[in-house]
């Protein structure tokens, strides 16, 4: 390894919470060489971000380094005060964050935000800082940089915002950049562009980088060395190749298994014990609908135009049979969410028709659709389980509410029984039902969302990125759950996602959208293995691949 830049030695970080002191990091030791890119991988709560924040001294007020050292160029950053600390932050070490749009001040022009960083650390005039900011926008390859200087974050796409963040982070040529989930929430092609840019800049400037991510594939693609964290400790540290082909620690093995790859099947994500129970369901042949049965859903030439500008969706047609699963993929802005919302009848199509179970429902105004008898047949699972649940509703209320509204059930034993049935169906422990969303984990909230959606026994579930905010191991469980619901309850799934590996596993057929129109569609595996259009090929290639070999299969 090259010259050592950062050495974290037996780091302990604790948070004081209402329920007492929680140890988030419990003895992390790692080193980063100058110019090296290190991957720090783990699931939420593993302490990977806390390690990053402790290093850049950005811990919340409640968090405290309780032990160990963080030596940056031989100096312990945990002891820095005042001007020394400010020289460290932004100048010697900088950080970029998850959710770039939230990380930028919404009411300050981006040029000023970059200049802020420069002016803090360099004694130069405002005009000179502005000129440097413009150069940085060029360096991060933002088109039309002069005009963008005066843009506000809400006028830029997520990928653009992350480029601006990178520009801010590199503005003072730091020796170390800590990237905390820099591409989570961006679609695959944007992710690739942003990560390539970051890697190029880091290489060109000899900047060391710590890439904090939950995505093993992403870390494997960009880092020579990966450290895996679990519950505040580093459990394994190795090159990607060794990590994937011969993971030593049990946790790494589980993580590697749960990460969907180009070849994995949904049953691969299950651990040994669960697999047998699952196998009986999978092996049960699905009833083919009798010939001549009308499709469950038929969409004809659907189009949506918003107030001004071109069509968000145009000429979209598809059919779905009962119990079928169809994936809807595309980059952000491709119109996949708009399409799914029209089918759910949450927004009104501008043109075209939606036929559900032989009845035209496209012309029922979306604000009246809650009175339609089909409302309970078409239900939706939303992207962010944190934000799509009412914080004042307990899990029980969330699941019971649609039953009362749509099924006309009254509060009582029957309702309680049905809610408990749904909770059991999605694997939600019954003692969690009285809890409120903030008392539940991400996976539990996702289950509440699914239980709510299936409460009225729908025939079509529309899922908008239901696992995007979840850890891979939780995602694996949720995907299995959805697959089981489809097989056992014959619920058709319309699955909107930018994660092609997941779509490939879960969906029989896939529709690729671009700029509001269908680019390609077909049987999922065939479509991804042999994409017919360049666009689909680009999407497929952008997925970070994990090289799996026979060794891995043996390890499982």
């Amino acid at each position, binding site marked *: 390894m090259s010259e050592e830049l950062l050495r974290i030695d037996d780091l302990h970080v604790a948070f004081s919470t209402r329920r007492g002191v929680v140890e988030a990091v419990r003895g992390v030791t790692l080193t980063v060489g100058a110019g090296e890119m290190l991957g720090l991988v783990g699931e939420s709560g593993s302490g990977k971000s806390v390690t990053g924040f402790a290093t850049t001294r950005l811990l919340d007020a409640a968090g405290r380094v309780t032990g160990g050292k963080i030596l940056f160029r031989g100096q312990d950053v945990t002891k820095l005060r005042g001007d020394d600390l400010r020289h460290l932050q932004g100048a010697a070490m*900088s950080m970029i964050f998850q959710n770039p749009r939230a990380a930028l001040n919404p009411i300050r022009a981006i040029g000023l935000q970059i200049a802020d960083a420069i002016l803090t650390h360099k004694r130069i005039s405002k005009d000179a800082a502005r000129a440097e900011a413009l150069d940085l926008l060029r360096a991060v390859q933002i088109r039309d940089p002069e005009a963008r200087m005066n843009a506000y974050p809400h006028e830029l796409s997520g990928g653009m915002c992350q480029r601006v963040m990178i520009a801010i982070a590199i503005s003072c040529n730091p020796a170390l950049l800590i990237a905390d989930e820099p591409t989570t929430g961006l679609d695959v092609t944007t992710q690739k562009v942003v990560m390539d840019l970051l890697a190029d800049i880091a290489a060109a400037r000899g900047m060391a980088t710590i890439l904090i991510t939950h995505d093993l594939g992403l870390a494997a693609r960009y880092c020579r060395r990966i450290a895996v964290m679990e519950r505040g400790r580093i459990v394994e540290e190795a090159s990607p190749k060794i990590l994937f082909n011969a993971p030593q620690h049990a946790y790494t093995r589980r993580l590697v298994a749960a990460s969907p790859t180009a070849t994995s099947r949904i049953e691969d994500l299950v651990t040994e014990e669960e697999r047998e129970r699952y196998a009986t369901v999978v092996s049960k042949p699905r009833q083919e609908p009798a010939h001549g049965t009308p499709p469950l859903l038929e969409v004809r030439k659907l189009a949506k135009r918003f107030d001004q500008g071109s069509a968000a969706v145009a000429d979209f047609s598809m059919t779905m049979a009962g119990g079928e699963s169809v994936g809807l993929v595309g980059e952000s802005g491709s119109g996949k969410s708009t399409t799914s919302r029209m089918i759910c009848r949450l927004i009104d199509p501008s043109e075209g028709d939606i036929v559900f179970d032989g009845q035209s429902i496209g012309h029922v105004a979306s604000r009246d659709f809650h009175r339609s008898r089909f409302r309970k047949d078409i239900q939706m699972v939303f992207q962010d389980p944190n934000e799509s649940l009412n914080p004042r509703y307990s899990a029980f209320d969330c699941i019971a509410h649609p039953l009362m509204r749509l099924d006309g059930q009254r509060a009582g034993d029957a309702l309680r029984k049905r809610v408990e049935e749904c909770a059991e169906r999605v694997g939600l422990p019954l003692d969690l039902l009285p809890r409120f969303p903030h008392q539940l984990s991400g996976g539990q909230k996702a289950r509440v969302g699914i239980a709510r959606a299936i409460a009225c026994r729908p025939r079509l579930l529309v899922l908008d990125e239901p696992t995007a905010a979840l850890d891979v191991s939780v995602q694996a469980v949720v995907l299995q759950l959805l697959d089981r619901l489809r097989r056992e309850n014959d619920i058709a799934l319309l699955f909107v996602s930018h994660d092609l590996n997941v779509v490939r596993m879960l969906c029989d057929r896939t529709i690729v959208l671009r700029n509001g129109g269908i680019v390609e569609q077909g049987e999922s595996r065939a479509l991804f293995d042999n994409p017919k259009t360049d666009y689909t090929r680009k999407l497929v290639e952008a997925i970070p691949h994990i090289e799996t070999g026979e060794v891995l299969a043996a390890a499982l």
Partner: protein
Amino acid sequence: MLSYILRRIVATLPVMAIVALFVFSLLYIAPGDPAVVIAGDQASPEDVERIRQSLGLDRPFLVQFGSWVWRILHGDLGTSIFTNLPVSAMIGQRLGPTLSLMIVTLLLTIVVAVPLGVVAAWKAGSLIDRVIMGFAVFGFSLPVFVVGYMLAYIFALELEWLPVQGYTPLTQGFWPWLENLILPAIALGCVYIALVARITRAAMLEVLQQDYIRTAKAKGLGQGGILFIHALKNAAVPIVTVIGIGIALLIGGAVVTESVFAIPGLGRLTIDAILRRDYPVIQGIVLLFSFVYVLVNLMIDVTYTLVDPRIRY
């Protein structure tokens, strides 16, 4: 932007019309014959009849309303029954003191309350925060007249730093003008300062948790830059809203404050007019206050667009 302001002004017309109708109906909502009410207890039937004639109360309601609106549109608010002076002239005389009091109070509030709220949010949970919020509760709970008399007693009677009562127009010098307004402004501003400080603190606390504040820290920005450049402007929308709503509070408070400090403003004119059942004056004042309030609301909405580029009309 300009077209938005024009549209908003047009949209206020129906509001003003409803207010006008309500204000005009005041006379009729009050129980009894308006002419008898105005004439008072000792009036003879001839007096009542004369008042009825002179006010045109013998005509149908809608005709009266129509001619009243017509006169207002021409800038004529009518004539006081008690002093026989034009209402607009009476209001014009009293406008200066009240406007002075409100502006001084408003400035005092902003200068004191916003920094207090920012500091309280920055040091949330600390002793400083608790002391500031303790004062805020205190400010909420004390009625204007209690604070007013206390201030007058301490600073005017005992310490003799400031005049006890009265008002000097701005035309006679800045300091004499301000000197008379300091105590009333503090008395009137107490509740207002408490309110704005609390809202500022709450809005700042919310903003300080945002990701972009963390970004600002990561850039190495100093505490002042983070608080005032990045945080305060983002917290401005609720603060501006409450300051605007508070102007209504000020109007109400001014009535009491002016009585305590013997300021010859609109507040005292209102009280006098109500006691004398001087309906044209009451109508004029209520109309003016509602107009000011509608205008303030428009100003708040325009301020939003200046503060936040995401708000477009």
